[in-house]
């Protein structure tokens, strides 16, 4: 789960990590109230999951209330990489002496947590040559390691002590909240010698949420997403008109690629997981039926132990009670596939022997 900046900062703050004075606003009245508390000048920061907000002009400086009125509305309407904000964070302008980069992340390659730090902050880290990467033991960062990171980015004396304290708090947060990433860019050293997190990008481990009641509030699922989740499906809404359903994430991804190659546009990705029953397929069709623009449903089910007649039964049930009206093109391998074919012969569903044939039929429809 990717958190918005203000959410990440809430968690930072609960670990004693210093953040600038800020308030969240979802309308201009709230923004003006917030500005009274923060004072001018301040910055408006669009709350988006996507990166590159600064470059895209989604972070704006304001000196007066008039400016807030105008720029707030502007930001709320401003789409960045297809994403619109639901709220804007108003934040005080910090008295910055120097900017750094710091991130703590799950290193998939090395299978441990690693730190990236640099004395050049505020720019895209990929473009920075002068950065260090260090691996962190599973039980958290040691003070020796923190000290060596501080040395490597050129810190000494009290600044070094302040940095070590900062990174230890961040380490504690990562392990306790089970985050995959906590990136602070820029991390600012202020005039008073303290470090403050000017930005926050936090990604939490979805699979660990069951033991973090306090973090569940950040999970923002659309109605369809929560319906899919309740049924144990993986579901992603896309832009096109072909809904793709299958058993297994890899298989559905592969089908999505082939649909795209054949000139089709996928409108939904739904993996109903390992166990296909009449009920689970029916529920999958129910979720799909609520996705707008869907013209056809493509089912790619590679079964072995799956009984295809149970799948056919689910499709018939969904047609019968009008859950779906659009045609279903299906490739279903597994036990009883002849029986399934006969069951569907009178319906709007059609079974194919290969996935390529099913895709062609769906794309041409």
């Amino acid at each position, binding site marked *: 789960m*990717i958190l918005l900046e203000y959410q990440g900062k809430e968690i930072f703050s609960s670990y004693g990590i210093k953040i600038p004075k800020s308030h969240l606003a979802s309308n201009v009245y709230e923004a003006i109230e917030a500005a009274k508390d923060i004072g001018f000048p301040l910055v408006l920061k669009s709350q988006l*999951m*996507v*990166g590159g907000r600064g470059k895209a002009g989604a972070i704006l400086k304001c000196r007066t209330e008039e400016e807030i009125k105008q720029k707030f509305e502007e930001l709320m309407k401003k789409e960045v990489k297809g994403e619109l904000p639901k709220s804007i964070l108003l934040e005080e302008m910090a008295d910055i002496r120097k900017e750094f980069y710091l991130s703590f992340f*799950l290193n*998939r*390659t090395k*299978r*441990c*947590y690693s730190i990236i730090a640099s004395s050049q902050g505020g720019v895209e880290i*990929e473009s920075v040559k002068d950065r260090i990467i260090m691996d962190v033991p*599973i039980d958290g960062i040691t003070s020796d390691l923190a000290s060596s990171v501080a040395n490597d980015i050129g810190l000494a004396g009290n600044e070094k002590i302040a940095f070590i304290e900062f990174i230890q708090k961040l380490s504690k947060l990562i*392990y306790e909240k*089970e985050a*995959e990433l906590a990136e602070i860019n820029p991390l600012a050293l202020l005039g008073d010698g303290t470090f403050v997190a000017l930005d926050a990008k936090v990604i939490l*481990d*979805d*699979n*660990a949420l*069951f*033991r973090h009641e306090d973090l569940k509030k950040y999970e923002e699922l659309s109605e369809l997403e929560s319906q899919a989740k309740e049924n144990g499906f*993986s579901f*992603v809404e*896309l832009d096109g008109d072909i809904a793709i359903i*299958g*058993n*297994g*994430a*890899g*298989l*559905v*991804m*592969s089908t*999505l*690629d*082939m*649909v*795209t*190659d054949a000139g089709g546009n*996928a409108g939904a*990705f739904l*993996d109903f*997981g*390992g*166990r296909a029953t009449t009920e689970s397929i029916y529920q999958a069709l129910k979720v799909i039926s609520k996705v707008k623009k869907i013209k056809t449903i493509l089912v790619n089910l*590679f*079964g*072995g*132990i799956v009984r295809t007649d149970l799948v056919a039964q689910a499709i018939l049930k969904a047609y019968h009670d009008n859950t779906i009206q659009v045609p279903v093109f299906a490739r279903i*391998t597994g036990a009883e596939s002849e029986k399934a074919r006969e069951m569907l012969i009178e319906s709007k569903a059609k079974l194919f022997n*290969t*996935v*390529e044939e099913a895709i062609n039929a769906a794309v041409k429809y």
Partner: protein
Amino acid sequence: MSNKFDLFDILIGKESDDDFKKKPVIIQGMTGSFGSTHTRLMKEYGTNIVAGITPGKGGQSFEGIPVCDTVKEAVEGTAAKISGIFVPAPFFLDAAKEAIDNGIKLLVAIPEHVPLIDSLKILEYAKKKGAIMVGPNTPGIIVPEVMKVGIMPAKPFVQGSTAVFSRSGTLMYEVSHTLTQSGYGQRICFGIGGDPINGTNLIEAFNLVRDKDDINSIVVVGEIGGDAEEKLAEYIISTNFEKPVVAYVAGRAAPKEKKMGHAGAIVYGNYGSAESKVSNYARASVPVAKRPGEVPDLLTSRLKK
């Protein structure tokens, strides 16, 4: 990375062994609906399942297999070194630790949704105790026509000399099925797992079969997310890997920053993208199939070279 670890020794043993092809396997979480269905199927396939573990159900039996309360009891007298773990994700950490503590050397970790920190902890513990883990979020391992520890259907697989390593379950079945239909049987098929952290990664899997004379080629089924394919390509180049390799990468058309079903299948910027994987494979002269059905043809042309 340990080259000394012989996967086949653990899985099927040597011809001189009394229990050649009949190595004892225990199943943790055998009595759940998932565990019991697959225990029956594994047994039918020829896997020598000697005990199941479900705390509180010790003394019962299922399909003639005794159920024990603890791994310790299950291992006593059976000398099992392999465990198939079928417990729900929240119980995985304890189950895996118990297995390692009681001498299990190969953990096949089936559950999906295991927290990443739990995977990291088990991985470190396994290394310390000289065990290896496959998964989590894996369909398991199959040595076609000999045995399987996992949830894969039997039908797609026949004995042969190709190894299939896959980050996805159903794609492993699909690709093996197309190989089988084209006359390419498999010596071993092995699910790496769909999570960001894999107990045995692609490079380690390659190391496990690198010196096997009865394996003449490898098919790698990958997907978007992470850099496992990129690292594998580097490994193939830097170690002069000699066996022909053919790849498939799922997720070319997936949107960025969206988790495509698997916890590990997510692209951030260019990191984890299909383009990056395909171009790295190209540098290692590994052909990449556009769709699963194309894999056998690519393999044929690689084997001719």
